[in-house]
């Protein structure tokens, strides 16, 4: 699992620019499913055929990042955020453009109070001294991801883009280890989740599934002076009850609960007060789809040091497999 996580998290795939990560995932699942397609927006849809219920599994391939919007005469690059980029998390970070160009992200020195920091007062330094030189490396509209290597320490994984490459890893591992089932399963690696759940919406419309389960990360309440939240790293995958985009269907919640009990893994419930996720778009697409999610507890989401427990990720795989096999309507 760690090797897969490492490979997936260290591949670039900023929202709207998922080509590279899509190819990596495609290679991982090739031959394990009956059909692989890419749709208009770029979702990767892998189908395992069957005569039973139609289930959609969703994990988003995209990650947050930045887009170059302006280059000044001295070669400094101004940028916009893609997805929820926090200005404080961004200070002193490295970003990597798709062509490999690395830049240092910092803020204008005349800023007297850090409280007033805005992304518009920050820039990317790619180490050149003219606009002409900069344009050889970076064009307007080019995107970059944050740099954050993937390390394992005991049971803990620290990396960029665990949101949601850890979910992608869970789905890939499930595909590779699925026993035979009657159910027809659509494994969807979605695009543009961080920009507003866009890929999930169009994928669900095409598939019109009987049920949908997303696998994504969620926040935790287990760090010093953190906001109150019951989810803790290491206490098992979380069954989503609600977030800002969905109140999960009781049928899906029950299915996940029963499956977790049956295979005897630890689990917890997730009530997320901020943020949305793919099932938010899926459950109101195509006339309505009962939807829910398996969430991986993750600290410091949307930073280059997202932190999650390996056992939670491994148990999420087991929970997903059991749920997919036992759903009968």
């Amino acid at each position: 699992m760690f090797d897969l996580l490492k490979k997936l998290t260290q591949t670039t795939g900023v929202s709207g620019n998922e080509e590279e990560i899509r190819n990596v995932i495609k290679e991982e699942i090739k031959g394990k499913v009956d059909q692989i397609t890419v749709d208009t927006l770029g979702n990767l849809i892998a189908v395992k055929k069957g005569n039973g219920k139609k289930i959609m599994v969703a994990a988003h391939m995209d990650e947050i990042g930045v887009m170059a919007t302006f280059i000044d005469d001295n070669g400094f690059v101004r940028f916009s955020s893609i997805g929820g980029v926090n200005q404080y998390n961004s200070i002193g970070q490295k970003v990597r453009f798709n062509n490999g160009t690395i830049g240092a992200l910092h803020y204008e020195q005349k800023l007297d109070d850090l409280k007033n920091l805005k992304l518009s007062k920050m820039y990317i330094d790619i180490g050149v001294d003219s606009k002409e030189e900069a344009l050889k490396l970076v064009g307007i509209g080019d995107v970059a991801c944050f740099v954050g290597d993937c390390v394992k320490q005991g049971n803990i994984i620290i990396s960029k883009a665990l949101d949601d490459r850890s979910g992608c890893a869970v789905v890939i591992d499930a595909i590779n280890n699925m026993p035979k089932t009657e159910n027809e399963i659509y494994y969807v690696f979605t695009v543009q989740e961080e920009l507003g759940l866009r890929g999930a919406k169009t994928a669900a419309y095409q598939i019109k599934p009987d049920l949908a389960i997303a696998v994504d990360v969620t926040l935790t309440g287990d760090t010093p002076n953190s906001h109150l939240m019951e989810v803790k790293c290491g206490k098992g995958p979380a069954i989503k009850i609600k977030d800002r985009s969905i109140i999960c269907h009781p049928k899906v919640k029950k299915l996940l609960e029963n499956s977790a009990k049956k295979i005897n893994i630890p689990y917890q419930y997730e009530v997320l007060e901020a943020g949305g996720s793919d099932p938010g778009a899926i459950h109101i697409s195509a006339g309505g789809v009962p939807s829910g999610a398996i969430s991986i507890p993750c600290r410091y989401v949307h930073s280059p040091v997202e932190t999650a427990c390996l056992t939670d990720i491994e148990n999420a795989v087991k929970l997903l497999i059991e749920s997919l096999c036992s759903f009968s309507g």
Partner: protein
Amino acid sequence: MLLKELTELNGVSGNEDEVREFIKKEAKGYCDEITIDSIGNLICLKKGRNPKYKLMLCAHMDEVGLMVTGYTEGGMLKFAAVGGIDQRILLGKRVLVGDKKISGVIGAKPIHLQQTSERESNIDIKKMYIDIGADKKEEAEKLVSLGEYVAFYSKYLTLGDNTIKAKALDDRVGCAILLEILKGKNYEFDLYICFTVQEEVGLRGAQVASYRIYPDMALVIEGTTCSDVPDVEKYEYSTILGEGAAITIMDRGAYGNKKLVNYIFNLAKENGVPVQYKQTTSGGNDAGKIQTAKGGVVVAAISVPCRYIHSPVSVMSKSDFESCMKIVHMSLEQFDKNPELINSFRDDLNME
């Protein structure tokens, strides 16, 4: 001139009738089917010789404005904003109220009666009123019903040689360009020319139209922000007046199809037509809803930069308008020559 007539019509979001009627009359005889759908979009179809692909052109008919929400005892009208309006631009403006187009002006407590604290802050929209010259509540009620729309009063005017001032350039510029295309030839592909409603209150018409049509590609033609003015840093310019039509890479609503965006940008460059990228990623337009219609749609937005957008005194450059028109025209010509191009931008390539 079409743009003069279009901008002097009133069509605040939800009340696009006047604009729709005008466009419908202009369109008559130039297209094969005219549909007005349930939400009020006007959809004109120019059938293709080989209708394998459907292309949608989209411009919204509606503009920002106000709505009457109440009366004061003294006969003044209270109002709310329809769409995104900077309330600081409202005071002292002339407006036309309701279907009868009753003249009014927007007022507030005079400066010499304001407390010091009031003088130092902006007057809230709730404290403003429209004066239509009525003395009593009863008189105002007779003239204007609750819920009636209020539009800015602003004549189309040329400033200097190359610049236009008008209200509602967002998005009558798009309507004007679509009407020109509509009056032109038929193409290989089916061309759905859509004049949408309620863009300014949440891209509502486009959501309905794109579901109905579900095109293979959509081009949204817009008036967009232009912030090349004093006290704004260069890197914060969204677009620059006079530097050509602006192509959006990404905004809050949509991430334009990258291959299509590049194609259009390069096509313009190769043909010497002025073109720029919209450099900021704020704002949104109909493309946001069209992109995620049904199974997803290949979209791009091409815009005319407009300073002081969403105000009665929007300003645009004639040459930017021309370049936007040329780019739309050139793109359609390319797709006409090679309809398979329309299908070449999408990501879905069956891989197994």
